[in-house]
């Protein structure tokens, strides 16, 4: 199956700082989603982005499918951004999202 690597595994930011999270995947994909898992364990959809660039407020994401990576940008980080960010692509012909190990983000005041 598809392999997913996320980096960095841990990230500590001062409130107001910007960051870039990276997701590399091993095969072509027909779906890729970014999630934020909050401290209560809920998985919050951030982006559905199999290709191209999308923006939603302080967050944006870019997927370059031909080069097999996706990036999540967080600008002007806030303490409520803390949690684990997961990248999850779906390989061609498959129905399952394959999650990476995540990036654990801690935003400190």
């Amino acid at each position: 199956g598809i392999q997913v690597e996320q980096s960095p595994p841990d990230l500590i930011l001062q409130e107001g700082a910007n960051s870039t999270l990276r997701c590399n995947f091993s095969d072509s994909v027909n779906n890729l989603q970014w999630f934020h898992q909050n401290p209560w364990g809920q998985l919050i959809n951030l982006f559905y982005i199999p290709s191209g660039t999308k923006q939603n407020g302080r967050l944006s994401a870019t997927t370059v499918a031909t080069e097999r990576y996706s990036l999540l940008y967080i600008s002007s980080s806030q303490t409520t951004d803390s949690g684990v960010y997961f990248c999850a692509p779906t390989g061609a012909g498959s129905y399952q999202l394959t999650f990476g190990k995540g990036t654990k983000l801690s935003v400190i005041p």
Partner: protein
Amino acid sequence: EPEVTQTPSHQVTQMGQEVILRCVPISNHLYFYWYRQILGQKVEFLVSFYNNEISEKSEIFDDQFSVERPDGSNFTLKIRSTKLEDSAMYFCASTGRGSGNTIYFGEGSWLTVV
């Protein structure tokens, strides 16, 4: 915004007991999924379900697991004889168009096997 709902939010069960986790997917969705997350680990795929049958399953989804859509709204995961290692958060998810569309997750059911 429509959402996937799961019950119970938390269940504690004795080892060897049967557990049923329930999910109500988004009403016009056609593809349903179960995932699990052991504490501190990544989210793992268990099974996908479409048109009243399993379309994909992982190695984790062995004979002790089963899924069912008993009526037009519910989607259930049954664990026949729970083991300690089944302790995890179980997420239900649904989507309207299979692998090419946004998959929406419920809030999860936390299962603790003692």
